[in-house]
């Protein structure tokens, strides 16, 4: 390994692609005849194939969860603080699989892929997906990798929803389920933010009813605004205040000047939005936020989460963060209470953090300790 990477990094990683020719029946009733999933792996699969861990990503995530793609890469994968040698998800012990979800825009088949029936990009015609469709496609990836049972399925936010769905859809295929900063369903406020973000995209003249690729156009302004809205919900009031306060980037309030004033927070959000718009597909954003809105763990179990979790056979770790107002600790408590009601093994911690929803991605001594100690007790045999 080159010395330029930190010692506790998985180092250089190369994404891989798996092809699937068996049609995948989707929750919407349509089938996807052929598709590809792009994924990365870290660590070694043991001889008994019992040390595999699946990482499920959140709204804007992808398969690149840890390590670096090149020597020049400045930033590691999105969960590098938690995946690596000696880290909570210890790659010296575990074989970690991180997959870009179907419908994504980082290599797996999605709206930017070519529709074999038309020879044009799928765009808005790509089938609407539900969380369970991701879970089923991940199960097929597990089949191909020869993994009958995950030591753990782990996810934060939307990833936590996938992990819970795994526990209900394939109860005998995971031993532990780690649900971080998630919820069993979105609140009206959550849906409202998602819809506002979607409207920003749809009302951009560059959207062309979702066929922007055919028009060689991109609704980049709408996508940027969508990201700005989302980003606000990932941060706490406190951390925004601490980071930006009312600091000005330019302009002045002085009398007699008409120079426009720009707050630091405005410039930051615009930068985040513009960056995102360059790397993310608008149809994928619409698809994933809809999947989030429609997710309701207990819907098919008579709206009874205890009845839903009665199907689970694994052990659970549930973690929330004190200032997370997107999926507040109360949402995690609902998960925990349902698990207790269903008499399932569960450990729950509410981590004190200033960082809002984003805390699940960031370093924190207590979070790292708790997560690491829980992972250490997972039997890899």
């Amino acid at each position, binding site marked *: 390994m080159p010395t330029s990477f930190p010692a506790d990094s998985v180092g250089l990683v190369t994404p891989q692609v798996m092809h699937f020719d068996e049609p995948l029946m989707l929750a919407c009733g349509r089938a996807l005849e052929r598709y590809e999933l792009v994924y990365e792996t870290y660590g070694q699969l043991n001889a008994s194939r019992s040390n595999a861990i699946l990482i499920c990503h959140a709204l804007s995530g992808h398969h690149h969860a840890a390590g670096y793609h090149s020597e020049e890469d400045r930033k590691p994968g999105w969960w590098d603080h938690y995946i690596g040698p000696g880290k909570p998800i210890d790659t010296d012990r575990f074989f970690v699989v991180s997959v870009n979800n179907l419908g994504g825009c980082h290599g797996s088949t999605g709206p930017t892929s070519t529709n074999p029936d038309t020879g044009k990009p799928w765009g808005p015609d790509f089938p609407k997906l539900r969380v369970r469709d991701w879970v089923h496609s991940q199960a097929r990836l597990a089949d191909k990798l020869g993994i009958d049972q995950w030591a753990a399925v782990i996810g934060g936010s939307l990833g936590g929803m996938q992990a819970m769905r795994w526990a209900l859809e394939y109860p005998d295929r995971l031993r532990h389920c780690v649900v971080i900063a998630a919820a069993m369903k979105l609140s009206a406020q959550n849906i409202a933010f998602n819809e506002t973000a979607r409207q920003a995209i749809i009302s951009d003249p560059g959207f062309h009813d979702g066929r922007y690729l055919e028009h060689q156009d991109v609704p980049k302004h709408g996508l940027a605004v969508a990201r700005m809205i989302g980003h606000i919900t990932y941060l706490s009031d406190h951390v925004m205040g601490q980071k930006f306060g009312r600091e000005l980037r330019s302009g002045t309030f002085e009398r007699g000047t008409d120079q426009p004033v720009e707050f630091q927070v405005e410039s930051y959000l615009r930068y985040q939005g513009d960056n995102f718009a360059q790397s993310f597909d608008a149809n994928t954003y619409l698809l994933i936020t809809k999947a989030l809105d429609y997710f309701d763990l207990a819907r098919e179990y008579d709206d009874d989460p205890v009845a839903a979790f009665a199907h689970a056979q694994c052990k659970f770790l549930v973690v929330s963060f004190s200032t997370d107002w997107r999926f507040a600790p109360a949402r995690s*408590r609902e998960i925990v209470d349902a698990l207790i009601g269903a008499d399932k093994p569960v*450990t729950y911690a509410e981590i004190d953090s200033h960082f809002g929803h984003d805390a699940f991605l960031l370093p924190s001594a207590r979070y790292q300790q708790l997560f690491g100690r829980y992972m250490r*007790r997972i039997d890899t045999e």
Partner: protein
Amino acid sequence: MRLDLDQIQQWIPQGSRVLDLGCGDGTLLKFLIDHKQVTGYGLEIDPEQINACVDKSLNVIEQNLDSGLGNFADKSFDMVLMTQALQTLHFPHRVLEEMLRVGKECIVTFPNFGHWKARLHLTFKGRMPVSDLLPYEWYDTPNIHFCTFRDFDLLCKAMGIDVVHRQVVYERSIKPLAALSPNLFGETAIYHLRKGAES
């Protein structure tokens, strides 16, 4: 081994579903799992103690007892335990009431503030008692609601709680005296409680 563990386990039927309030590092819960094959959960708020429970592979839930047990269904546990935490609660009587709602039976242990050493301390030094068992100063102690055995007996009576068993833990040397006056010589009491018949 802690003195109270052995006594407590005798009152817990094999394979019970238990809830341990203020479970600390999980010593009691682990002991009961190993010796009585119980299942259940511990509630705790101290991050270090929660980590210690995680190390023992226990089901530990971060929950503040002062916020109540509203998330637990009536009679959903065979036994609800609370060892040496009663005196740290803002509203001990309310938690006691909740314990008897959630559990079919309860076990509560607490230090006796009517112990002769505490009485002497207050009488002769004129200061709030500080001892090996209760090593805090009055202003920094987590123990905010002290009571004596007699106080607790009266509370049980007022709340219509049946005391199924009571076991008092003494210093070894003082045992002959203790039978005469548990409230004077007992250090810790272990109460086995049940909701009284509705009158």
